[in-house]
């Protein structure tokens, strides 16, 4: 392996992490939206959200990525691998984030809502001033957990030919006829990235505990 090989694997790692971050940036607010739909018990929509969350949560990421990439053209929507990957990853993380937000919403004390109502706050202000600041704190550990899980499952998009970390390592391996070293290198970089996120998670939880939010 020469410097170029190392560099290409590093690039792959960056692409993988950027893909997961993009999907998380879209998926976390979408998950909140879905959770609010289920919380508000909107007719029909809440059932659709329920089925969606259940289906996606039981579906392996690889299978979902393959489904999105190969099946959408049947309906006349032809996506390049990158948008297809982002779509699949977003669909998946949205379902998980919805559950995190929803468990915070379900445990939200009803009397606070009543009190806000009695003070004459309208719907928007009730959510903005009373509900959201609290469920945000309650959801943070769960969200962080989901972030690390998402970063760990993103290499699944390799199956549709995106040159992310796994593909990059495979490619180097087949060029040098030594498959093992590139994978060890890839594992080391990727573990380091996940490790940083795990540490961040611990740090945030500690901060929250010190401030008495948890």
């Amino acid at each position, binding site marked *: 392996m020469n410097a170029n090989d190392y560099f290409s694997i590093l690039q792959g790692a960056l692409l993988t992490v950027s893909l997961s971050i993009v999907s998380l940036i879209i998926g976390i607010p979408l998950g909140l939206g879905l959770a609010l739909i289920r919380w508000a018990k909107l007719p029909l929509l809440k059932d659709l959200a329920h089925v969606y969350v259940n289906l996606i949560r039981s579906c392996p990421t690889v299978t979902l990525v*393959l489904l999105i990439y190969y099946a959408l053209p049947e309906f006349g929507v032809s996506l390049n691998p990158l948008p297809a990957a982002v779509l699949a990853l977003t669909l998946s993380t949205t379902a998980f984030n919805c559950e995190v937000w929803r468990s915070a919403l379900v445990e939200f004390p009803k009397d606070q809502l009543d009190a806000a109502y009695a003070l004459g706050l309208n719907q928007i202000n009730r959510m903005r001033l009373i509900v959201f600041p609290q469920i945000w704190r309650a959801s943070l550990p769960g969200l962080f957990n989901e972030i690390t899980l998402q970063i760990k499952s993103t290499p699944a998009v390799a199956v549709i030919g995106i040159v992310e970390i*796994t593909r990059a390592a495979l490619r180097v391996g087949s060029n040098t006829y030594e498959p093992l070293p590139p*994978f060890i290198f890839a594992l080391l970089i990727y573990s380091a990235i996940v490790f940083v996120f795990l540490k961040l998670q611990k740090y945030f939880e500690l901060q929250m505990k010190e401030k008495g939010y948890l």
Partner: protein
Amino acid sequence: MNDFAIIWSHRDSVWVGLLNTLVLIVLSGAISIAVGLLLTPVLVGSHKMLAKMVQFYVDAMRCVPFLLFVYLIYFGLPSAGLRLSNWAAGALALVLYNSAYMAELLRGAWLELPASILDSGRSFGFTGWGLLRHIMVTPMLIRALPMIGNQLIQILKDSAFLTVIAVKELTHELNGIQSTYFIPFASFITALILYWIVCMVMEAMMGSFEQFAASRRP
């Protein structure tokens, strides 16, 4: 609908895939719970050096994405002089990866156990292995049951990754049908629904286990 008819005509290979996935889940689930049970006392034990080593293994697995780990096992074993079939290599990867998670969540359950259980076990003269087997294991497993259920579902999802080393599991078989007949939607929707059913059955089984455990709780 014609597409689904094609899949129905290939139900034998779908069945092989489903069966392989199920066998992989049951086998690696059972082995990793067993290994987790063996590692947990080491993790919380007094032998600092051993505990550190096991903790390192657990942390390493938690930082590694499964797909990369599969390739590492698949390419690494021959270099270590071990020749395994793809299926066995995949199963080994599942076991090694999930044992760490099982050990970690069982450790959590162990630490949550009231100290009185351990103390009363000791005062009845149980030590070491006997203490573990007769006193600790049952309440620990009961406490960890919901998390073990989650981890088993995680194993189901990890097993789909094994398609990259051509293990004949569900995703692999349906991907094969898909690429032969160009019916991606029908194939992968079938896979998705089958995974869903398996998950629901697993959840129902865990639920009845939990009820049984709750009824036996003193």
